[in-house]
């Protein structure tokens, strides 16, 4: 069963008089449980694709089906609900709220899902323990290393058990060891059946995924799959 189905997606940005075609008749299907890396140079349309997949912006034309939702037909508040329940975001710059503890940061999506406070705390503690931060729960982001911050962000992304985990250059701000730790968590999640879409410009990191989609000028240039992702590449560097 396909989790994501994109048909004839166009996205045109108009700044002043200049129109930029960021996505050009893009077609894409992603099945449940896949670990997909989207590769491409800057300007290839990676970020635009991520925004559309993450329901952060709507395509100019074309159809997007996520699970059973016809996303491009949804209202603003319905999109918000989908972002909250179906999608977990992981960003290059972590995007943790600086004045909140790790625990409170993880609680945030649960709060917006109107989960009771005790349930929020229980779930957040469980998730932080899962990413190995059981002794860092009351720390603020500035008291955590980059890798730890990204693990908090992963815990937050998983809070509402999303159908799709979207990662935008998740290792871009990390040293190789921390990056590898993050990718290891992704591997584990993948093995547990979590669908992951990861954007990267680094082909080596893309090797960790079982499917690599290369974008160029808003179109799919290449789409290749490996049955078993090659694990040890990063460690050789």
């Amino acid at each position: 069963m396909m989790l994501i189905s994109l048909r004839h997606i166009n996205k045109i940005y108009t700044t002043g008089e200049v129109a930029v075609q960021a996505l050009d008749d893009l077609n894409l299907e992603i099945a449940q449980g896949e670990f997909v890396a989207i590769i491409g140079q800057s300007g290839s349309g990676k970020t635009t694709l991520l925004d559309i997949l993450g329901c952060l912006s709507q395509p100019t034309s074309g159809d997007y089906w996520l699970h059973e939702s016809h996303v491009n037909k949804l209202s603003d508040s319905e999109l918000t609900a989908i972002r909250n329940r179906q999608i977990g975001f992981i960003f290059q710059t972590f995007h943790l709220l600086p004045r909140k503890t790790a625990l409170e940061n993880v609680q945030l999506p649960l709060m917006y899902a109107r989960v009771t406070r005790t349930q929020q705390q229980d779930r957040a503690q469980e998730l932080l323990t899962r990413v190995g931060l059981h002794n860092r729960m009351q720390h603020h982001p500035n008291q955590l290393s980059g890798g730890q911050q990204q693990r908090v962000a992963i815990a937050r992304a998983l809070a509402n058990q999303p159908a799709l985990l979207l990662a935008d250059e998740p290792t871009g701000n990390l040293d190789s060891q921390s990056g590898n730790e993050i990718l290891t968590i992704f591997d584990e999640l993948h093995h547990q059946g979590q669908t992951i879409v990861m954007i990267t410009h680094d082909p080596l990191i893309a090797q960790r995924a079982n499917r690599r989609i290369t974008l160029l000028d808003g179109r799919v240039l290449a789409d290749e799959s490996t049955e078993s992702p090659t694990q040890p590449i990063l460690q050789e560097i």
Partner: protein
Amino acid sequence: MLGAIFRDALKNLSSNMLRSGLTMLGVIIGVASVIAMMAIVEGGQVWLVKSIEQLGSNLLFVWKKRLTIEEKRLFAGRNLQLRYDDALAIRNRFPNLKVAPIIDIDSQLKTGERDYSGRMTGTSPEYSEIRNFHPASGRFLQTSDIQTWNRSVVLGKTIAEVLFGTQSPIGKEVKIFLGARKIQKKSDGTNGEKKEPQRVGEYRFTVIGVMEPKGEIYGQDRDQMIFIPVTTALRFFKGNDKIGSIVIHVPDRNHMEEVTQNLKQFLIQRHDGVDDIHIRNQGEFLGTIDKTISTFRYVLGGIAIVALLVGGIGIMNIMLVTVTERTREIGLRKAIGAKRQDILLLFLIESTTISVIGGCLGIVLGIFAAYGFGDLVAQSMPGGGDWGAVIQPTAIVIAFVFAVAVGIGFGLFPAIKASKLDPAEALRYQ
């Protein structure tokens, strides 16, 4: 959910204490000035009403109109002017009223070394009761003083002190002569021997009483008043029977209008059908003062409200800055599922919190300011001793409600702006 948003708002405000405090200061000053202004105006009103009532209650004041030259010509030969006879006639015609004629004369008083210039009042014994102004020692004028036009004088407290120091003035002698009249030299021209200039109209009076201290009321220092019998004043100092005014006490406050009408008719009749007198009652004075005070209330209240509005603009300003600073946070919150109203509330509660806390502090400051200013007025204004700040609960409620409304009103625009941010753009805002 609301609780969580409120905790967030407090956390954000306390994380930038200086900025929150300065923003709050606008609201604090606004609320404080509303309360202080209202309290001072209210205090002024209470003071004025009290002052007027101290003049004596249920009073009517009768005095002559100023006629134009045409009118004077037109009514020539008729019986015009307010005369002592009028006062006596009123007394005969309306026996239940207390009537006191009043005539003011500029005079000089002299006792041995000391002298004093001031206004002297010729009146009748009823005056003391009508104006609720009594002697502290000795006695006030009596009917016999009027009948015999004797040369008795009752002194105000200050004047007694000026002329006699700590001694008791009762029974002592005072020389009184006209203050305004110029002293003329003998004009026999050549070779005139230099004599002491003859004082015109100098008379010896006996002090029969000293009035109680009463202070200044309505622009008149009653401790500087001098009373002599009205008949004496007319005979020795005026040479005619024209009086300045008549003050009348009406026993029943409810009949003021009726009595005024009757008096008016009676006097017009006496003045050969010419309406040349004014009659006003204290209620009208109070009404005038009330209007004046209301004007003050609106003017000062308006200024204070403007201060509060400026505070509100301060809130809006700082909230706009906050929204810009926290654009990425807004983007993140939206990405992980915050609805528009969640973002709206986040910022609206923040601005409202500023105005609520500012409002509370403003109330405290306003109360202090009001009492502080009240004391200042009491110390600096002669006779203003009773002018304290009167803080009404309604003023506090109005100021607080208005402050909160300002916080919500001016916080709304930045909050709406935040809630409408595009999540994709906001997330990548630099």
